[in-house]
């Protein structure tokens, strides 16, 4: 039996309409961390079910991607990578960083509409769905990273101390990808038009992001536009860390850092703002 004290217990929580911009409930996210890992492992497990090569795809994808890029830009367009860097190494390191960014965008943007059923049937902090995609992207990144030492040996490249900065670039690229993905996912709940829009933009963006070729070679009239692309600075940072390629000077690093952090928080704000209507309109 309960003690007969008449003191009112405090409710565990109170449900009320939220107003304006709401904050992220970090404590609750932490309580639900098991579900975060469950979502992550579900997605990772599902990815290669019923495939012949299974996880080998994690290695094949970036290798083939970089191969295509270096064939097109190096082999056909005859573009040169800066600093006598082999074009394949240039493309591969570019792809590494690019895939963190674009992988997050493509996975995060569909993380809500792909889980419609859950959102309309059960409560959990909705941020878990986009956040859980990080693991899959990082696994891909780590696997592709294992190829880098072989490239370094093959092409006689020695990275130096900048290698220690590698996590910073990955983190910033992830922030930016997550931010854009969060925005896209929230808007996609209302308008599925976002999905084709994202794929169009993501198909075009690598060409102005120094993924496969160096943008110092771009025509001068486009140069002042290209500097606004914050990805370039981060990809150059990746190359500086991995293959010791100096910054080209065509991008402003400080701008890239500020932009990625800002984009991330904008994404979170947009997501939290839209969150309350997800279940009603999805």
């Amino acid at each position, binding site marked *: 039996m*309960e003690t007969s*004290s*008449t*003191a*009112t*217990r405090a*409710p*565990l*929580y*109170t*449900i*009320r*309409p*939220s107003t304006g911009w709401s904050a992220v409930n970090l404590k609750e996210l932490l309580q639900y961390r*098991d*579900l975060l*890992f*469950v979502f992550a492992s*579900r997605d990772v*497990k*599902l990815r290669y*079910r*019923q495939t012949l090569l299974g996880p080998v795809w994690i290695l094949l994808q970036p290798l083939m991607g970089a191969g295509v890029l270096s064939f097109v830009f190096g082999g056909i367009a005859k573009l040169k990578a800066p600093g006598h860097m082999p074009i394949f190494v240039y493309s591969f390191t570019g792809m590494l960083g690019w895939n963190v960014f674009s992988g997050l965008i493509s996975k995060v943007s569909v993380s809500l509409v792909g*889980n419609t*059923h*859950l*959102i*309309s*049937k*059960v*409560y*959990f902090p909705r941020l878990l769905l986009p956040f859980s995609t990080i693991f899959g992207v990082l696994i891909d990144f780590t696997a592709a990273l294992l190829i880098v030492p072989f490239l370094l040996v093959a092409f006689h490249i020695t990275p130096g101390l900048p290698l220690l900065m590698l996590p910073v670039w990955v983190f910033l690229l992830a922030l930016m990808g997550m931010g854009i993905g969060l925005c896209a996912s929230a808007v996609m709940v209302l308008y599925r038009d976002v999905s084709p829009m994202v794929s169009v933009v993501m198909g075009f963006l690598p060409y102005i992001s120094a993924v496969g070729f160096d943008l110092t070679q771009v025509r001068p009239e486009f140069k002042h536009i290209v500097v606004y692309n914050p990805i370039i600075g981060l990809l150059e940072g990746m190359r500086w860390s991995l293959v010791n390629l100096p910054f080209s000077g065509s991008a402003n690093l400080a701008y890239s850092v500020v932009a990625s952090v800002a984009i991330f928080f904008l994404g979170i704000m947009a997501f939290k703002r839209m969150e*309350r209507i997800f*279940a*009603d309109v999805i």
Partner: protein
Amino acid sequence: MSSSDLAISVRGVAKSYMIAHEANKEESNDFSFTAAVRKRARSGGKREEFWALQGVSMDVYRGDVVGIIGRNGAGKSTLLKVLSRITEPTRGEIDVYGRVGSLLEVGTGMHPELTGRENIFLNGAILGMRKSEIRSKFDEIVDFSGIERFLDTPVKRYSSGMYVRLAFAVAAHLNPEILIVDEVLAVGDSEFQKKCLGKMQDVASHGRTVLFVSHNLTAVQGLCKSAVWLAKGKVKEAGDVGRVCNNYLNEAYSESAVDRSWDDMETAPGDASFRLARARVSVNGPENDVISVSTPLYLEFEYWNLQPDTVLNLSLHVYNETGVMAFNTTSVGEPNWDGRAFPCGKYRTVCEIPAGLLNDGTYRVELLAVKDRGTVVFMMEDSLLFEVVEDPSTRAGWMGKWPGVLRPNLSWCTTVSDGAITTVRQA
């Protein structure tokens, strides 16, 4: 009771949805891009606010087992969604004093490509269990589900029965202080429903709080001590389960579309060839008598035939509440007028549904008038809507939802075919 015994306190909860209106029928035949854009742009201004809940207040105390009843669209599901934090209320507040587990369906989030084992963890985590909790109950869950041999098979290879058993086994091991259950009983076979009810009784007897939404008044009356009747987004009545359920049944009957008439031939539904004057369900007895599974009922239609010399037949499509067509019956073979040309005039056609044919539940009758054996001249999707209620004397103790679209009263017979054998064996 003092406030220290509260489990859930709902105060003035309202929820509105924006609903877009459909464009006119003529327009929607135009599937071109410009038409679509035009329609979009226009319907943007034609959105209307719909209040699914309009100021619901109720207190649920610890250990209460509360049934929430009401018609479709009364706001039951919306209330559950707000209580389970799936959607936010537009106004009002709810204090929740304990961990809530909500089962709005069985197997939420289970993935067909994953194995049984993987799905136990996935589904458990989605329902709010910690990983350690699932691990400690894992063997129990597997035992309960009885799918041990298929634990490492993807659930897409399971039969639907196995799938539901696995899902339910996980749900049954959810151990919240407050359990919210929605219509879970509507799925699965009777065996499963029995298990479900048993489990809920179990939870309730352990002093935990249960909120149970169901169309199935028999189950509500069997399980719950009190009930809340929602109508049009408001609490119509709350209190003792027997009283609330009775009042609900009486009202449900009088509110259904059981008698509709149109006096003016010019504006009655239909067109220049056929107009409906009246549609009515009745029973053989006092005016407001309730239709139960053991009363015969009459579907009665009055109509004007406005085109001379048409051979007219009525056709009825009878649907149950889940949208399944229970049966289709026509006036072909009717003794007086079938096959004859109808002169212009007003006619009345009655169809008798015998006692012991329909199951309990809500039925909707779609009326079609067919000209010359083949052309539909009139159609009304919801010409009648009526509820057939339970007759407890027919149930033989079974408490769950009576399965099946129909509940025909068929003749049964058991005889001793060889009495000697049993005697010999006993000896």
